[in-house]
């Protein structure tokens, strides 16, 4: 590649990066501007840094509660998804029993269903089970929807473990349960974290399901909390911008800290699905 082309490519990348970053930075800095300045200064740094918007939100119960709710829902979803999918994948990876192919294919139907198509009957199901407006009403369907992909990824990984390992363990009288707990799971760290990342991100960013299931604002995850906040303060953009910044911050921090893992997890989920 000659120098001129390299400079042109670099320049084009800078332009695209600018387009990507400008709205995010305008939002972050917008939270520091007062309403009068917002009207005339969209893209610049704040002329007068107003900290009260951010401080008020950081000092509010509301902000921490929506983050706490999201975290609780996401952690429950991840824990249950990992537990159920690893058990299921283990059985399908190592055992041949009557109907195994049928049951696996049945579960794999989950890869085909767009989650939104059955949202109305799902709502009625959740209502009839008495789970409306509860964390479990969000967690259990989320787990159910993430199972197919998780089982697919884990079953493939479990099958890759050397067969000699299982033979040797069985020879020594180690049953399947102990083999699962002490050999399979410890050896499957990377793929388990991939599954954890996929289901965590899906749950953390979830909107439609909690929107349909949850009524009380005290149980809102951050996605619903943000929309409710915007609806309430829609004339005070500086507050809304600060609230947006603070609610997307955890996802950005998680991404910056565990970048490699998250990118690998999300693309692996896409590729192997």
């Amino acid at each position, binding site marked *: 590649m000659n120098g001129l082309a390299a400079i042109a490519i670099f320049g084009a990348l800078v332009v695209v990066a600018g387009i990507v970053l400008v709205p995010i930075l305008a939002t972050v800095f917008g939270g520091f501007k007062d309403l009068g300045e917002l009207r005339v200064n969209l893209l610049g740094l704040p002329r007068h840094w107003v900290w009260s918007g951010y401080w008020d939100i950081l000092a509010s119960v509301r902000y921490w509660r929506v983050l706490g709710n999201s975290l609780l829902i996401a952690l429950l979803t991840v824990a249950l998804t990992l537990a159920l999918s690893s058990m299921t994948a283990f059985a399908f990876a190592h055992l041949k029993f009557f109907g195994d192919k049928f049951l696996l294919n049945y579960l794999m139907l989950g890869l085909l269903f767009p989650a939104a198509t059955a*949202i109305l009957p799902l709502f009625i199901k959740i209502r009839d089970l008495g789970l409306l407006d509860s964390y479990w009403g969000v967690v259990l369907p989320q787990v159910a929807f993430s199972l197919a992909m998780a089982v697919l990824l884990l079953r493939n990984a479990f099958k890759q473990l050397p067969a000699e390992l299982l033979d040797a363990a069985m020879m020594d009288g180690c049953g399947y349960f102990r083999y699962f707990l002490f050999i399979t799971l410890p050896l499957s760290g990377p793929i388990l974290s991939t599954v954890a990342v996929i289901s965590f991100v899906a749950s953390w960013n979830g909107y*439609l399901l909690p929107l349909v299931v949850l009524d009380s604002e005290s149980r809102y995850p951050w996605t619903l909390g943000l929309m409710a906040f915007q609806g309430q303060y829609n004339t005070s953009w500086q507050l809304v911008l600060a609230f947006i910044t603070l609610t997307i911050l955890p996802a950005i921090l998680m991404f910056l800290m565990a970048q490699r893992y998250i990118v690998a997890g999300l693309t692996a989920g896409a590729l192997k699905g």
Partner: protein
Amino acid sequence: MSTVEQAQFEPARRMTANSWAVVVIFLPPALLLFTIFVALPMAEAGWYSFYNWNGYGRPDRFIGLKNYGYVFGNAVFARALVNNGLVIAVSLLIQLPLALAVALAVAGRVVGAVTFRMIFFLPYVLADVGAGLIWRYMFDGDYGLPATIAGDLGTPSVYLLASKDWAFAAVLVVIVWKYFGFYMMLYVAGLQGIDKSLLEAAEMDGAGPFQRFRHITLPLLGPMIRLSIFFSVVGSLQLFDIVVPLTGGGPFDTTHTMVSFLYYFGITRMRVGFGSAVGVVLFIICVTFAFGYRRAFMRND
């Protein structure tokens, strides 16, 4: 080769009491959860779609295919279908080529390649709701880009998201902004899998950069491109989260997608039969596309 591997890894063990215990204890929880929250609701959507039902009591007012007639006779749904089509078109014609171009640039030895990749992936990390509100601000007629530009030109500002002509175009911009980074990452992963010696050999033989791209990179990236098209279309068909914070389907119901139509016209009004029919239509479109596409283009991948 795959059969050899299969034979090697397929267990040839007989089922013992121990392995039956595994089956009986390990499988039911997942299967039960899947049945209750995924399989049954899907089947019930098909069943409810033949009834006029408000969700209380049992569905007993059977009306045959009338709900489907209402769905296809609904002007807002027709517009939603068009909108989903526009999302697919923009995804395939703008988003994916952009993602590929950027991936080719940052997969090479350009300065700051890792930083660029991180920046481009950033919008994908934000939830749709966050990204949607950020852009609601950027498009705002009093505070956002239109206000700034109009202020510089001394003309009256434009309220894009309240305009029947421009609102959905604005939604499309946000979709490209939010998702191209994800596809870039897929392509980068694909590019990293290409054997560099092939490109070097071609260069030795005098192939220019475009020839190398056309005859080596592009064919080898084929499976990844076919996959990205698949994801892009299926994702476009299910679009919802980003519409709500931007327009909520307005103005005058011109920016709905099939799922937002399902939400605003089915769920919030508890028209269970009608909403289920919308769900079934969406399901049939998705599954038909998925099977057709896989059959036609992804048989060997």
